């Protein structure tokens, strides 16, 4: 089995096979990284060694090589053996027992509940409204079904749907899905930077401190445990 180099949510994931000799692993790794040397620069790297025991010198040498040779930024080590985790900790890396399961709330959202109770859900119509335009500030689009917008929704605009909302573009305004009370409705955008998100009677806004991180990928907002959560699509 070979070492695998993959991309994941938190950057680069190096999965070390359990059987190979350490020097073979390092050689394989170098071979793979050399293929696209500059590509890896600056990438946060997690090393998953599973239950493989490691020598301190080996780990340190590898971390050094990743940093100096390829410009990677080793940040974490996943190891089931506590000794390995201690080693990682000593080198200033985060030590984990296993790979984290994708968390639902990747970004902090502040949740406030709406002042009035949720209205009786009226059955939404089965057709979706598809708009191929940018919704400008001050415009309000309302639809008793799913709403798909191919374009941006600028700040100051409001889009309201009894069903789901999908924006193929940048969502900067206010989006309200499940407007008649459907808490299973969701809001999806390829670039989610809203002023406010509302699903059924829940409201979420991005925190006041600092600007929200530039979403580099499509994200979905939905209600989980009574709160609006945003996660990568």
């Amino acid at each position: 089995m070979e070492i695998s180099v993959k991309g994941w949510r938190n950057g680069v994931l190096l999965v070390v096979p359990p059987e190979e000799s350490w020097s073979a692993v390092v050689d394989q790794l170098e071979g793979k990284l050399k293929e696209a040397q500059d590509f890896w620069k600056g990438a946060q790297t997690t090393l998953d060694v599973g239950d493989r025991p490691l020598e301190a010198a080996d780990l340190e040498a590898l971390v050094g090589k990743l940093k100096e040779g390829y410009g990677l930024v080793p940040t974490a080590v996943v190891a089931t053996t506590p000794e390995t985790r201690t080693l990682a900790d000593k080198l200033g890396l985060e030590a984990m027992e296993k790979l984290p399961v994708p968390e639902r709330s990747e970004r902090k959202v502040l949740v406030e509940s709406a002042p009035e109770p949720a209205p009786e859900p009226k059955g939404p119509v089965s057709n979706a409204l598809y708009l191929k335009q940018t919704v400008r500030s001050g415009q309000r689009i309302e639809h008793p079904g799913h709403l798909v917008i191919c374009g941006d929704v600028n700040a100051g605009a409001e889009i309201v749907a009894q069903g789901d909302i999908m924006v193929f573009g940048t969502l900067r305004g206010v989006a309200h899905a499940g407007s008649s009370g459907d808490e299973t409705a969701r809001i999806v955008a390829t670039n989610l930077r809203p002023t406010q998100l509302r699903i059924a009677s829940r409201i979420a806004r991005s925190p006041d401190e600092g600007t929200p991180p530039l979403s580099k990928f499509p994200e979905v907002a939905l209600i989980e445990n009574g709160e609006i959560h945003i996660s990568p699509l």
Partner: protein
Amino acid sequence: MSKGRVIVITSGKGGVGKTTTTANLGMALAALGEKVALLDADIGLRNLDLVLGLENRIVYDIVDVVEERCKLRQALIKDKRQPNLVLLPAAQTRDKSAVTPDQMRKVLADLQEDGFGYILIDCPAGIEQGFKNATAGATEAIIVTNPEVSSVRDADRIVGLLEAEEIPKKPTLIVNRLRPKMVKKDEMMSVEDVQEILSIKLMGIVPDDETIITSTNRGEPASLSESSRAGQAYRNIARRIRGEQVPFMDLEENDGFFSGIFKKLFAAG
């Protein structure tokens, strides 16, 4: 006879440079040989006459025309410097309820019959009656915005409203009062930041320029001055409006090697 172009200069936000732009573009177009009429649609808060230095020549205004106390020709004021340019002033003692969109359309139709190649309408700030009057009958729109969040937000509102009106052509954009040094330091929105939100065709970029203040006070539009950078930008925009391809000015404020030396020499003396 081909119909003249009726262009409304609008913004939503007040104070971004609509009147300055109308006056300067009008003057620049006239200097290029076009027959230009400027129409001040800001009834009650008229400024276009001040910026052109023509206020003491006003006898009749647009409300007099619309209420038929005078003929249109009597209300038109010829510019004191440029024979190709006329101004139809607004009333100062009335307000925007004094004119309706239909009346505006009639005035514009009459102006077009007089053979004006360009009719520029100075739109008031806001989105209410004044805006509706100013855009009635316009065939094109130029949106003026400052590189700053409030005016871009308001401009976006205006783009949405214009899209809903019957103006056939898509609006174009002038970014006014840009300060390249601040943009470089990331302290001011860049033209690209503005375009990311507005996404309309860029007609011109006018730098922030002190000569605008002096030219407004004197009633001498900056596009008449060779040394004013804003004036130069307006002259370029006028050419672009006529269909010429004009490269955008390099707005980096370079004080230049020699002027820097002179400043130091004479400062010491």
